[in-house]
């Protein structure tokens, strides 16, 4: 630990990094991370099975918490819809119609059946990204195990895209699409080249989607924790319990990145949908 932190904060930051370090080489072991409620609770009951369980499943717990919060708010907003909407219903109608217009603008009218999935994805990822800015909470998409959350989301998109392609084009049309839709002799000769390229391209999409979201959110969280540590260390020499909020500008940056990354994830998902179900002369 390079920071000379006061005794209050040091054990928390230290346990957060130690926990990350104890989980194998594939995690950001040296990266500072802000402690959340579960980290603190599980470090209190160190070694007990419940503490280990809580620590290992913190991403799952927080993403379920976000899902429950969104569901409850959405249920309350749509419980008894009125002709003249109240504040909550009005806000939700605005969000839903805005998202619907946005995605039909990319996918076209015929793809309205995918907008519920994509809109849910956007709202969910947006809330997941911004959840880490609440004190005591974490972004399930960031942190040492955040890659599991983002891979889960990206695999959902992958399978739904393949399913939509199979349903729209049929099995023959789907493989025709994967072979680069050969129509003349030269493109039939190029099929052994095109088929692996398309298959690798399909498999690379979830990988790049998940790594992009994970890397951005983790980088942002580590940045916040590092600057918070610096701000605490700045006043540590006079034993002050209060540091300088050096991380405050990066909170606004985090708001921006969280929103943009949620937008990028859903935008790329909808582009993958449009590549799979679009007319053949249109795709890339």
């Amino acid at each position: 630990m390079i920071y000379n932190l006061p005794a209050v904060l040091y054990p928390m930051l230290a346990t957060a990094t130690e926990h990350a370090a104890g989980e194998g080489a594939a995690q950001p072991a040296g990266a500072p991370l802000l402690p959340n409620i579960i980290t603190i609770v599980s470090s209190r009951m160190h070694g007990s099975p419940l503490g280990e369980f809580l620590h290992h499943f913190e991403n799952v717990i927080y993403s379920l918490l976000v899902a429950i919060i969104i569901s409850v708010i959405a249920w309350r907003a749509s419980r008894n819809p009125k002709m003249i909407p109240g504040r909550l219903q009005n806000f939700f109608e605005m969000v839903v119609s805005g998202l619907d217009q946005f995605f039909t603008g990319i996918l076209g009218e015929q793809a309205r059946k995918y907008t519920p999935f994509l809109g849910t994805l956007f709202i969910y990822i947006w809330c997941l990204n911004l959840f880490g800015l609440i004190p005591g909470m974490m972004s399930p998409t960031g942190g040492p195990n955040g890659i599991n959350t983002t891979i889960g989301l990206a695999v959902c998109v992958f399978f739904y895209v393949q399913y939509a392609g199979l349903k729209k084009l049929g099995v023959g049309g789907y493989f025709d699409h994967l072979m680069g839709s050969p129509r003349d002799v030269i493109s039939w000769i190029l099929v052994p080249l095109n088929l692996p390229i398309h298959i690798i391209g399909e498999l690379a999409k979830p990988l790049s989607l998940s790594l992009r979201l994970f890397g951005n959110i983790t980088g942002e969280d580590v940045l916040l924790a590092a600057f918070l540590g610096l701000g605490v260390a700045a006043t540590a020499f006079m034993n002050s319990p209060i540091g300088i909020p050096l991380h405050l500008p990066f909170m606004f940056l985090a708001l921006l990145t969280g929103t943009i990354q949620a937008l990028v994830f859903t935008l790329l998902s909808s582009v993958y949908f449009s590549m799979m179900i679009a007319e053949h002369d249109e795709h890339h």
Partner: protein
Amino acid sequence: MTFQTALSLALPFGLALAAIGSAFGLGKAVAAAMDAMGRQPEAAGKIQTGMIIGCALIEALTIYALVAFFILQGRIQ
């Protein structure tokens, strides 16, 4: 030179190189998009969507370097 020393020298340099490359790429992409928006303000929405997709694809390469940084950072200790 132990491999920890090599890593702690190479990791920031590698990340910086990736960042420089994607900064040039993003600069070109955003400049062209702004140019197009200035010429055709009525198409700004479509251009912006395309620009964000392109920016995300360019930026992904830096993020891969960042992920590799995080993975390898654990070995320096």
